[in-house]
């Protein structure tokens, strides 16, 4: 082995690289000239990634603030909320004594919007949109996405969806309030609830635009990964991040159209008088004209997307965490192929388990058996992943920085939240646990907080690539420990509430003898929620401060990573690599091998080197 650490990467790419004649086509820089084309209608994947990230952050703050308001109601139902009147206006009802209470209708709207925003806008668009856009071209050695134009459209459809949803928050009848799943008949009948009036109309239009955005993005990601890999980048040399983005995009392409179909029928039922989901219903003493629809049909269509959707949220973070754990423990990822296989297995199974959300809908119990079995089988590939993550850490030379801490925290949360999934996947236990806080605790840990941890790990790790500066490590570590403790304090007690049968989405438990003694626990949860939120404010300050004032990156490969994004200039321009494209000679996980700390993918196989992976 010659001195690999001495090799000048820039020189190597210049000599060994692959000339695609990119810089002979100067029109490539045309769309980066003005402010508008560089920052607003950008077609550069790195800028689009930042647009997705910042938009996602704005939505995350809105969604989190909503959860604080309803947590306040749940933890301190007696308290005076009149001070919120300047912000929430008519939704705080002030009585003669001057004591303000949260409107019950608006409480449901808050819960609904919190779910919609976090699931779709933050953890789908904000997460996949950011990291798929940033990392796919950089890590496979491409100049940009297959279609930069569709990529730009993808962001702007998301933006449009966001604007429509945002407007719906200010309607006099309030935003949609029937739960993020929008089950009929409640979501279809304006006379049933205020939120089902204009709020639901805007909600459904917004979601259709959102589906368009996800599909445009996903189609692009898949095409780019399969067609634009640089020389030598075979599928088995892709970093696990790219594998996870590819599989996520495929799952999205197959499941989101079905959601579009479901929403299309919703719109017909609401506006054109059809009866796909509406059966014979009396409301307010009046019989509806609708005859012969099936509300369960909607649930089938919705969850056919809805279940894959939770994997669309979690799969990209699995890739991010695998990559970061390997880098920060200076060891190859344990079981690379098993990681890819388990990702594929999870995504395949995600399509045949949707009815486990519907055990209590009156399904045939013999059919539920099928869904129980496949749901429990998901534990197998999930366990493979957890085992591999832990084995990657085992005996590693671990570097504890903000990114790796969040990645390790992710594994913890994924285990804690995943184990309760085994409870809920059983249709018999689900009779007790259905629609209780146990479910809330389960999915918040496993796909809410865990996905956020993966996202934070990714942000801390790739911040230098995005902005050419580091985020503050000390603040990052405070952010990690505080969030880890806070998140567990919020969601751990909720398991107990759920086992005791406390139902989710209830405005108040004052009239229920069985649940009224949980008042203290609810107070603790609310205080923990506020505590956790303020740590996220700390993160936001760190993020925006570091963007302009953070420590500058001087080493193009600050983490000592092997993947291609660290072979670009520190602030890559349009086209990512200045001269030739890098050529790949090895897989991305050659850490601590043959006495070398790390061997980047662009280094040719050296004479006498042991080959562990082709």
């Amino acid at each position: 082995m010659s001195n690999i650490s001495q090799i000048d990467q820039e020189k190597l790419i210049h000599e060994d690289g692959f000339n695609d004649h990119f810089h002979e086509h100067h029109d490539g820089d045309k769309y980066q000239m003005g402010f508008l084309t560089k920052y607003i209608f950008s077609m550069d994947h790195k800028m689009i990634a930042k647009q997705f990230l910042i938009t996602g952050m704005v939505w995350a703050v809105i969604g989190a603030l909503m959860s604080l308001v309803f947590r306040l109601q749940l933890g301190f139902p007696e308290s005076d909320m009149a001070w919120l009147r300047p912000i929430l206006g008519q939704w705080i009802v002030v009585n003669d004594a001057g004591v303000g209470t949260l409107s019950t209708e608006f409480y449901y709207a808050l819960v609904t919007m919190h779910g919609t925003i976090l699931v779709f806008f933050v953890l789908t668009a904000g997460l996949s949109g950011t990291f798929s856009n940033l990392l796919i071209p950089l890590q496979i050695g491409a100049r940009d996405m297959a279609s930069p134009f569709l990529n730009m459209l993808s962001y702007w459809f998301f933006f449009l969806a966001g604007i429509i949803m945002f407007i719906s928050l200010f309607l006099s009848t309030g935003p949609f309030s029937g739960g993020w799943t929008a089950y009929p008949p409640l979501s279809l009948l304006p006379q049933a609830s205020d939120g089902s009036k204009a709020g639901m109309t805007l909600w459904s239009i917004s979601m259709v635009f959102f589906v368009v955005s996800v599909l445009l993005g996903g189609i692009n990601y898949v095409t780019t990964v399969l067609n634009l890999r640089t020389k030598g980048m075979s599928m088995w040399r892709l970093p696990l991040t790219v594998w996870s983005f590819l599989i996520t995009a495929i799952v999205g392409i197959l499941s989101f159209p079905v959601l579009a179909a479901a929403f299309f029928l919703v719109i017909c039922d609401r506006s054109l008088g059809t009866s796909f989901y509406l059966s014979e219903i009396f409301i307010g003493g009046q019989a509806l004209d609708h005859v012969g629809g099936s509300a369960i049909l909607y649930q089938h269509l919705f969850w056919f997307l809805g279940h894959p959707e939770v994997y669309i949220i979690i799969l990209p973070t699995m890739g991010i965490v695998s990559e970061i754990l390997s880098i920060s423990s200076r060891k190859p990822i344990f079981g690379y192929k098993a990681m890819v296989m388990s990702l594929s297995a999870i995504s395949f199974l995600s399509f045949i388990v949707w009815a486990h959300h519907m055990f209590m809908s009156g399904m045939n119990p013999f059919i539920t058996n099928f869904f129980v079995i496949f749901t429990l089988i998901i534990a197998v590939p999930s366990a493979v992943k957890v085992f591999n993550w832990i084995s990657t850490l085992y005996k590693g030379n671990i570097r504890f920085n903000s990114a790796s801490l969040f990645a390790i925290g992710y594994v913890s949360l994924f285990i804690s939240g995943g184990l309760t999934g085994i409870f809920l996947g059983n249709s018999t236990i689900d009779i007790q646990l259905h629609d209780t806080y146990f479910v809330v605790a389960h999915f918040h840990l496993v796909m809410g907080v865990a996905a956020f941890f993966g996202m934070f790990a990714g942000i801390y790790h790739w911040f230098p690539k995005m902005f050419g500066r580091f985020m503050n490590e000390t603040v990052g570590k405070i952010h990690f420990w505080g969030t880890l403790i806070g998140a567990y304090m919020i969601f751990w007690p909720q398991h107990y509430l759920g086992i005791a049968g406390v139902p989710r989405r209830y405005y108040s438990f004052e009239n229920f003898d069985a649940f009224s003694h949980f008042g203290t626990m609810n107070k603790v949860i609310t205080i923990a929620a506020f505590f956790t939120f303020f740590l996220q404010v700390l993160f936001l300050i760190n993020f925006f401060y570091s963007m302009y004032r953070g420590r500058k990156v001087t080493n193009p490969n600050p983490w000592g990573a092997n993947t291609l994004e660290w072979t670009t200039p520190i602030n890559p321009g349009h086209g990512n690599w200045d001269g030739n494209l890098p050529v790949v000679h090895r897989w991305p996980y050659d850490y601590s091998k043959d006495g070398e700390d790390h061997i980047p993918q662009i280094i040719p196989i050296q004479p006498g080197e042991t080959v562990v992976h082709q």
Partner: protein
Amino acid sequence: MSSTVVVQKSKIDPKFFTLLIACASIFMMFAGLTSAYVVRQAGGNWLEFTLPDSFTYSTIIIIISSVFLHFSYFSFNKGKEASYKIFLVVAFIMGLFFLVLQYYGWTQMENMGIMFNGNPSGSFVYVISAVHAAHVLGGIGALAMAMIHALSLDFFVNDKRRNRLKITVTYWHFVDILWIYLFLFFNVQR
């Protein structure tokens, strides 16, 4: 968007590949709609009726349109300018005719007493065929673009143009096959 130079590793063109994935995605939407149809039908209270003949004629028309479009593509590749243009125009006109026949089919259904907002069995046919028609309309737009190119630009064959035509032709075949699937589905799942 010609601004990014595409490095082609495989022989398949990325834009063409994008189209194939988009087709898969569109097909999933119709798979969702037709599955909803099957599930709802199994629930009972299902009005049975025969499809209007207009749908049969429209099926024949769109198949012929696809065949003509493929002739046009062959002619383009062989450099036969006249037949390329003529077949393209014919395919386009037949595409429009398909939409007219679909519309006529909906009026026929209405005359039979199958209302859009009546029994779901009829509503499904209306909605699914309308969503399909919207996709055909997209194809008509693509054909119109191809026609404008064919009639206004000087004729010569190069890879870029062949690819563009191939994408248009493939999408048109896709909506054609999609309709055949839906037509057979409606006839079998009565």
